[in-house]
């Protein structure tokens, strides 16, 4: 006897998905979702995971030279957290059918991107603090709204990651406060780092809204909650009083409070520079990817050995039973 169970047709599935989004419920891994949504989520999560992993390099650059053992422990723990975030995010991408090895392959062959901020060099120990304060700060601005991402595993990953990022940001700010209370050379180091990282931090929010190709669809899908320019303004508004408290000058002559707007006005970002960095011509693009590729390639024989050993072990177990 045959039974015909009508598979739910595409229209019904789409309606169910649309209703999940409209009610701000989470989409879960086994739920039907449009291909475009799946692809966009994989791209978004993979880029975020890659950013965590590549982001280990600029700070990792200073672990062995950290000027006190306490700072060394703080930095080491932070970089380790980033590896943890990367693993967590790759797992979230795997719930969508992606494969971590495949995503890593795409990263090391330059087929998937990561945050351009990591293509700038870290040139003094103050950079460690400024990355915590400004770069992690901008990342938090971008990421906190993603805790409400419509895709469940990503939203939940972001809650945990944002908590840790806020510790990192405070550690960075605390390092800068300590350095500003130190010697003239230390204060100069902090100012130099702020001068170098302020504009790249503003660029972390992406192109202006009228030039952002993905924003509209991503907002409709509930995987992006605020526009690039909204988040950038918020970041500026929060950073200015922090810079004042710290005693550093933000390198923007147009920065001024606008009473009518109740926001800070600020100068325009050098989009040509950002575009050059995104295209691969930043100070460290080639270096970062080459470093990741070298670690991956040099680890191949180790991963092969682990796979071979696991296979041998299971054969031995089978032979026993």
């Amino acid at each position, binding site marked *: 006897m045959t039974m015909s169970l009508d598979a739910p047709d595409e229209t019904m599935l789409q309606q169910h998905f649309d209703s999940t989004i409209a009610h701000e419920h989470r989409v879960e891994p086994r739920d039907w979702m449009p291909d475009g949504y799946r692809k966009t989520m994989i791209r978004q999560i993979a880029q975020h995971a890659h950013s965590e*992993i590549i982001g*280990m*390099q600029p700070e990792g650059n200073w*672990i*062995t*030279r*950290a*000027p*006190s*053992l*306490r700072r*060394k*422990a*703080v930095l*080491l*723990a*932070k*970089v*380790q957290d980033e*590896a*943890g975030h990367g*693993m967590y995010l*790759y797992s979230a991408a795997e719930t969508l059918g992606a494969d971590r090895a495949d995503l890593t392959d795409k990263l090391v062959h330059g087929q998937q991107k990561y945050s351009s901020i990591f293509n700038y060099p870290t040139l003094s*120990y103050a950079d460690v603090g400024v990355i915590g*304060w400004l770069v992690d*700060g901008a990342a*938090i601005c971008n990421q*906190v*709204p993603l*805790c409400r991402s419509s895709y469940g595993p990503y939203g939940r990953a972001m809650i945990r990651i944002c908590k840790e990022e*806020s*510790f990192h940001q*405070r*550690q960075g700010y605390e390092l800068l406060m*300590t350095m500003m*209370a*130190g*010697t003239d*050379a230390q204060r100069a180091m902090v100012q130099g780092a702020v001068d170098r990282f302020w504009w790249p931090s503003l660029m972390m929010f992406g192109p202006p809204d009228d030039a952002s190709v993905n924003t509209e669809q991503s907002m409709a899908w509930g995987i992006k909650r605020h526009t690039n320019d909204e988040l950038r303004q918020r970041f500026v508004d*929060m950073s200015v*009083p*922090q810079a004042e*408290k710290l005693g550093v000058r933000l390198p923007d002559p147009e920065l001024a409070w606008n009473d009518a707007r109740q926001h800070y006005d600020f100068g325009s970002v050098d989009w040509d520079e950002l575009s050059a960095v995104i295209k691969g011509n930043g100070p460290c693009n080639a270096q970062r990817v080459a*470093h*990741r590729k*070298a*670690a*991956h390639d*040099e*680890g*191949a*024989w*180790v*991963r*092969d*050995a*682990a796979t*071979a*050993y696991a296979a*041998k072990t299971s054969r031995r177990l089978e032979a026993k039973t």
Partner: protein
Amino acid sequence: MIEDEFGAYHALTESEDDHRWAFGTGFTDALEGVDTGVAEGIDGDALAAYCLMLGDDALIYSHRLQQWITRAPELEEETALGNIALDLLGQARMLLARAGRADGTGRDEDRFAFFRDEHEFRNVRLVERLDQDFAELVARLLIFSAFRLALFDGLRASTDPVLSAIAEKGVKELTYHRDYAASWVVRLGDGTELSHRRMQAAIEVNWPLLDELFTPHAVEAALAGVAVEVGTLRAEVEAVLDTVLATASLDRPDLAPMAKLRGLAGRDGVHTEALGMLLAELQSVARAHPDATW
């Protein structure tokens, strides 16, 4: 809604003291409630030297592990190696601080780490070499942590309450380090032909430095009841190594120990060439700004 979302960010300029910043960053005091005075009858200078011996082993080896960060074969290994490097750094910090208390100079951990010269470091030579591949990493980690675990296990009974407390905490950490290393030595030894060859070579590179670990030193002799007699640890440590090597289908090397220099080695401040470069890196920023606070 949006204001709540950014609460964490706004909290940045509040001056509350939040101690949850990071694991292993010195906010949890393993010595809380422990009497840190030096008991009567204990030779303070010898105790300080002993703390430096054990502290420098951890400090220098942690540095070599830190150099692996962003270079590990898998992300899981990144986090594991970061963990181990942090544990050892934590042990080093407590031991160096103890040295400054024991010798009466009041020097802090950073004074010892950043402002001593090469010949003042008392670590064994095993921890100095730059790893050439992942097999060398796990070979040395196995030898080092098997030795240090046996040592710390004995140190729990030390009559110095500070060393005893440090050892108590360290035993749990070192057990994990040893087991992590052993699992990789077995995987690589019994993995592919290539990994087997590299694992065997890595064991051989480190083996000549094993003997120094068990060589008694005058400092230990001056600290009966406080220090562990390292000579007594050899059988236990070698039994662990033999078991792991056999499980990994690796041969126990038949190699002579690395010679000393006029009878002196790492514990006496006579090191390999590798230590100078390591210290140049470790100390560079701190020494460029001797008046700075970090």
